[in-house]
């Protein structure tokens, strides 16, 4: 028993298998892998790989501006809204006796209803109080529904000539021909050219459209150019990855790239590279394992790159954030311990004392162990036989400083503070542990100017 959609996708290569459980893949040999990756696996494979690589490049670049303009989801509505256009174009061409499966005709139809869908969203937003998510949901589903109705009508009435129309839904990269690859190349070239020429204008409109308008820039024209590029990439991607998945190529590479950089031109570059890599690797894998549809594999490849970026990126990645948070918690824990010793005028901390602090602060035994370890590594503590640990001079000094900062901060809270949002994403009572020397000096100046007596600097190196 087979799923009908699978039959649609790869009708010629599924002959042998009678059950889905029987389908097995033969692992390709090393030679096959190398041939595929170096464009030597035959004309067809080369066409597919170069076409999807160029498509990924274009989509990655253009997707950056859709993302920054917060139009990513509108792109999804656009791609779904192309389906009724494809059906109508087929019927239109057939009724005039033209070649109903001519790609330019079908893509022209796709473009028309796709743009119509976007206009419908704008209209709904303008003339009702619906929010954008609702408007997109309505347009996306209604247009797609209309497309499905059109498709089933065609299958019922012109089944013999309609084979292949379904490829626009799921994509069929294997049908790519040299003209398609040239088309992808032209679109990728256009995307790069437009970005080179208009990076300044695009970024201005994406960042602050009201300012751009006051400054005299034709915001709607610039928006139109960006939207036109999105339409172009979407329609071009229909054949290879299909209308359901093409939006992934516009969204995933830019968001993955965003993890790696804070610079716009680098974002464009990295997003383009991630898109191209997804197209290249995805279609190569699909070529090596013949039952894997290229579009889906390309999207999965992009998804994998996104997951890696989200985890591993140095500044914005999840792991980097966890490490920074943990380091901060360890530092705060260490501060508390040293401050505690300072306030008791002790230079040693007994085991019982340590246990008491840990209970008070709610430290788990492993966390307590890590705090002690990090303090030892930093040279704040050394072992003292029988009696627990002994503070080094550096440790004593740090305890005194933290204690003083605490006092300073308490005094300052009488007034009000303004600290970078990126520095206060943890609770406010941690502030005293993150005060830089610069901030401490500023605190002292302000308090002094208000006539507040500063806590003494005893034991604190200046």
């Amino acid at each position, binding site marked *: 028993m087979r799923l009908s959609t699978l039959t649609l996708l790869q009708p010629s290569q599924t002959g042998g298998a009678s059950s889905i459980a029987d389908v097995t893949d033969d692992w390709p040999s090393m030679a096959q892998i190398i041939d595929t990756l170096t464009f030597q696996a035959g004309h067809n494979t080369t066409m597919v790989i170069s076409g999807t690589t160029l498509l990924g490049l274009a989509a990655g670049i253009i997707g950056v501006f859709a993302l*920054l303009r917060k139009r990513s989801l509108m792109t999804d509505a656009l791609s779904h809204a192309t389906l009724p256009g494809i059906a109508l174009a087929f019927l239109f061409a057939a009724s005039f006796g033209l070649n109903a499966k001519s790609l330019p005709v079908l893509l022209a139809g796709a473009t028309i209803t796709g743009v119509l869908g976007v206009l419908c969203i704008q209209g709904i937003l303008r003339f009702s109080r619906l929010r954008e998510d609702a408007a997109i949901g309505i347009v996306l589903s209604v247009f797609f529904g209309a497309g499905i109705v059109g498709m089933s009508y065609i299958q019922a009435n012109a089944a013999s000539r309609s084979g292949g129309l379904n490829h626009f839904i799921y994509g069929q990269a294997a049908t790519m021909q040299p003209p398609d690859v040239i088309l992808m190349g032209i679109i990728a070239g256009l995307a790069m050219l437009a970005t080179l020429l208009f990076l300044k204008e695009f970024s201005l409109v*994406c960042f602050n459209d009201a300012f751009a308008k006051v400054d005299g820039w034709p915001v709607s024209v610039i928006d139109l150019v960006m939207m036109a590029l999105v339409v172009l990439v979407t329609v071009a991607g229909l054949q290879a990855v299909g209308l359901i998945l093409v939006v992934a190529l516009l969204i995933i590479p830019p968001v993955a790239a965003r993890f790696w950089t804070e610079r716009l031109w680098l974002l464009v570059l990295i997003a383009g590279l991630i898109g191209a890599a997804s197209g290249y690797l995805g279609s190569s894998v699909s070529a090596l394992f013949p039952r894997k549809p290229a579009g889906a594999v390309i999207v999965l490849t992009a998804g994998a790159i996104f997951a890696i970026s989200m985890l591993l990126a140095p500044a914005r990645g999840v792991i980097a954030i966890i490490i920074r948070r943990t380091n901060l918690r360890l530092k705060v824990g260490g501060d508390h311990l040293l401050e505690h010793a300072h306030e008791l005028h002790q230079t040693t901390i007994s085991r019982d004392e340590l246990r008491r602090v840990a209970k008070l602060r709610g430290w788990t035994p492993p966390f307590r162990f890590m705090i002690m370890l990090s303090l030892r590594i930093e040279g704040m503590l050394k072992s003292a036989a029988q009696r627990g640990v002994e503070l080094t001079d550096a440790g004593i000094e740090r305890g005194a400083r933290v204690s003083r900062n605490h006092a300073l901060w308490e005094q300052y809270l009488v007034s009000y503070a303004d600290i970078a949002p*990126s520095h206060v994403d943890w609770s406010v009572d941690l502030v005293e542990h993150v005060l830089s020397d610069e901030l401490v000096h500023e605190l002292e100046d302000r308090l002094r100017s208000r006539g507040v007596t500063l806590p003494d600097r005893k034991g604190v190196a200046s």
Partner: protein
Amino acid sequence: MSPINTHNTRTKQGTRLSERPEHSSSSPISVHAMTIAYHKKPVLWDVDYDAPSNKLIAIVGPNGAGKSTFIKACLGLVPKASGQVEFWGQPYRKARSRVGYVPQRESVDWDFPVSALDVVCMGRYRRIGWCMPVTRSHKQAALACLDQVGMRDYASRQISQLSGGQQQRVFLARALAQEADLYFMDEPFAGVDAATERAIVAVLRQLKEQGKTVIVVHHDLQTVTEYFDEVILLNMRIVAAGPVSEVFNKDNLQKTYGGRLTLLSEAAEAVARTASGIPEK
């Protein structure tokens, strides 16, 4: 100069405001009979105003009084239901290069992949022109503007890593980079630290020394007398406008903040209900 009061004269559309006796072409901005509505609900009624040249002008009024709407309408960012606005006796189209704008800080996504310097350079784009790259001389000019607001050291910082006050100063620097003669600033003092407040006040004074006019939406009544020359008291209409010493008094403040212009806001609600055909609230 006497306080300018609202009047209810109607003009034919198309006549130049500067030719009318109550408006002057030497005024940086003249507003005539301007009414603004959001979703058919009027938020500003029949506003008439002539800004005096080379003054620091505060717009004050309660929340929802239409302060931001007033400057957005002057700049053509929200459509006018009726009325005319002219800059130095010319339509906005022709005077654009002489007008600078500081939007509300919350109006943009600060997690945008640009540095503080990049944002300030945006103020130079109009001079740079289509498709041309930002040259070194424009970057120098932008750096000088950052310096003016005490932010030169943060030039290469990504903008999400700046504090609220620093972000506000970046916006101010961008407006300075526009090198305009008339500035509109939407709540530049909202939620900023003391250092930023001092920096903004210093910049306002410099702008005045250079002969410029600045219109600022302001929320802090305490500092109006200290920072500004002129004040517009706004609550859906102009209650009073003129030199701070003349119009910024208890009586006018009472009219603006207290007493809740109940009739006017009820009328606005009624208009909204009738226009949209649905009962609201």
